[in-house]
């Protein structure tokens, strides 16, 4: 009933099961390549810069940032929302495609989930440090304390945010790990190295692949998939309430939750595409991450890009139609024209116009074009968060409190540090974890192979 036979064969190159294991485990067994060491070195340097910036922030205070009374949220919240958005794709990819029984997810879900876990980790740093006095960060936990006990304010979206991000990080990480257990067992049983056998054997949790295990594994994955799908929608809705429940012009809109969720999935899918093209190119996984996989992601991106364009248009329309002069000012005098024209149009062009190139088959087929567009989307999504946060805060109701905002080197360093952390995390994933879910790919090999599908493919094309 749910077979996706129309897609044709998902794995190219007439592989057998043994070849699949060998191909995917190969990067783990091979010696560390030079480019990896270089890339890891650079990302660690970037990370170090971030650590210095964080040290300065914690030792001297938030005053080292460019934020001020009017613009209380600067780059940190932009980057927080940006990383959370990127972190959305993994679970969106895995979970939505899992419950929709889309078999083409199997080549991509592992990398997308890995990306999620690292990106959400990066994101979580920002609010934790932004709260100031990070050594008191545990105050946000509702725990019986010596202050009354004074519990936390459950009506605050910032508290919801804390709960949502922590839960999302925990759930994504467990979903990711749980999917890797059978693959760790495969590595354990194939390797001849004693160290690897011990290490991967430990992480495989004694997995044997018996029917008793698979039965529960399958049931658990559908249960987790079903409930985590709710989470994917709720996490970014909650992030949007940080803005939407305020009365700042440009934020106080009901369209924010769906707008944020779609935007998050958009940036996340773009990052998945960036990453999959890198994996495919560097590790020569074109038999697993085939043209049709990238084609499918490109089609999703063009669709979401249209939704983004509609959301931007809706916001602008309502700013005029509502008759609120503050809303009108924010959109027409401070975004479309005015001091932040560049940032606004960068957002619109990168998110709503450039991805439209994916309508052309030639663009979807070209790795360079697809890679470039995916980078543009990530830049565009960063500008979107910049627009929302900075333009609304710099000029609110009172002209006397209007101000400008420039990030300091500390804020830039913090951001670069998380970029380094993300790159390092992804590189470690490339090297030590099977990048493609081995057991899942094996499961779709025969069901979608050319032998069983040739006739159907011919009929459809």
């Amino acid at each position: 009933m749910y077979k996706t036979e129309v897609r044709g064969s998902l794995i190219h190159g007439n592989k057998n099961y043994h070849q699949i294991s060998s191909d995917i485990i190969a990067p783990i067994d091979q010696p560390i390549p030079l480019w990896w060491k270089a890339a890891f070195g650079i990302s660690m340097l970037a990370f170090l810069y971030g650590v210095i910036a964080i040290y300065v922030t914690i030792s001297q205070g938030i005053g080292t940032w460019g934020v001020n009374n009017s613009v209380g949220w600067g780059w940190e919240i932009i980057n927080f929302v940006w990383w959370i958005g990127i972190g959305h794709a993994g679970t969106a990819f895995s979970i939505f495609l899992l419950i929709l029984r889309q078999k083409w997810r199997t080549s991509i879900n592992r990398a997308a989930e890995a990306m999620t876990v690292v990106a959400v980790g990066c994101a979580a740093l920002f609010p934790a440090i932004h709260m100031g006095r990070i050594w008191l960060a545990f105050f946000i936990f509702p725990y019986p304390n010596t202050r009354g006990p004074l519990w936390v304010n459950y009506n605050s979206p910032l508290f919801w945010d804390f709960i949502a991000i922590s839960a999302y990080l925990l759930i994504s990480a467990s979903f990711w790990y749980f999917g890797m257990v059978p693959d760790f067992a495969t590595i354990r049983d194939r390797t001849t190295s004693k160290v690897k056998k011990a290490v991967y054997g430990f992480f495989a949790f004694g997995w044997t692949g018996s029917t008793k295990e698979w039965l529960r594994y399958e049931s658990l994955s559908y249960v987790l998939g079903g409930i985590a799908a709710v989470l994917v929608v709720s996490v970014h809705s909650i992030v949007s309430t940080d803005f939407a429940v305020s009365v700042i012009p440009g934020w106080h809109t009901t369209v924010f939750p769906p707008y944020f969720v779609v935007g998050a999935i958009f940036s996340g899918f773009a990052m998945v595409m960036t990453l999959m093209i890198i994996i495919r190119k560097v590790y020569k996984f074109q038999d697993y991450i085939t043209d049709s996989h990238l084609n499918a992601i490109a089609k999703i991106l063009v669709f979401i890009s249209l939704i983004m364009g509609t959301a931007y248009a809706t916001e602008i329309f309502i700013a005029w139609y509502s008759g609120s002069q503050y809303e009108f000012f924010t959109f027409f005098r401070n975004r479309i024209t005015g001091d932040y024209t560049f940032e606004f149009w960068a957002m619109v062009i990168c998110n709503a116009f450039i991805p439209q190139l994916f309508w052309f088959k030639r663009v979807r087929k070209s790795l360079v074009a697809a890679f470039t567009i995916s980078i543009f989307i990530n830049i565009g999504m960063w500008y979107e968060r910049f627009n929302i946060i900075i333009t609304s805060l710099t000029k609110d109701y009172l002209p006397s409190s209007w101000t400008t905002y420039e990030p300091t080197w500390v804020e830039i360093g913090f951001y670069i540090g998380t970029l380094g952390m993300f790159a390092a995390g992804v590189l470690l994933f490339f090297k030590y974890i099977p990048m493609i879910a081995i057991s899942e790919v094996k499961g779709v090999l025969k069901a979608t192979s050319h032998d069983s599908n040739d006739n159907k493919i011919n009929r459809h094309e």
Partner: protein
Amino acid sequence: MNNQHVIGVFNEEDELLSAIHRVKEAGIKIAEIYTPYPVHEAIEAIGKKSRFTIAAFLFGFAGAIGILAFLQYTAVYDWPINYGGKPTNAFPSFIVVTIVLTILTITLASLFTFSVRAKVYPGKEYFMPDTRSTDDKFVIIFNMDQNATESSLLIQMLRESGASEIFEKQFQPLT
């Protein structure tokens, strides 16, 4: 119980399925099947059913009630704080936290249940009749408390279904 086991190794899923079909018709009980990926027919052949969905529902139910009760207790009874004159019993805004934490409860409790029920946990002593079954082989095991004629009949059936290797081995019965 006898510790003698017959083990059949297959290269293809189809061959394994045909063997399952044949032995089931002959009324021979399968002890366990090891596959590199989930094979639904094999899972069904063992005749076990998972009640995971029921367990997850119960976790969610208990979690949701527990969390709502906690929020209610702390915010309304234990230390009601006046936040700008808003009602302390702000039920609609409790729902957000309740949903997210219920999902977290279901996830963590389900993972724990999985670990207990499927016996998958760190440091587990495991037994596999043939370690190639996590790579590319489909392995089926029979406990031979049956008589010798049945054993030879079984071997015959496995061979006809296309087993690449069949061997007999002594080991402790699977739990």
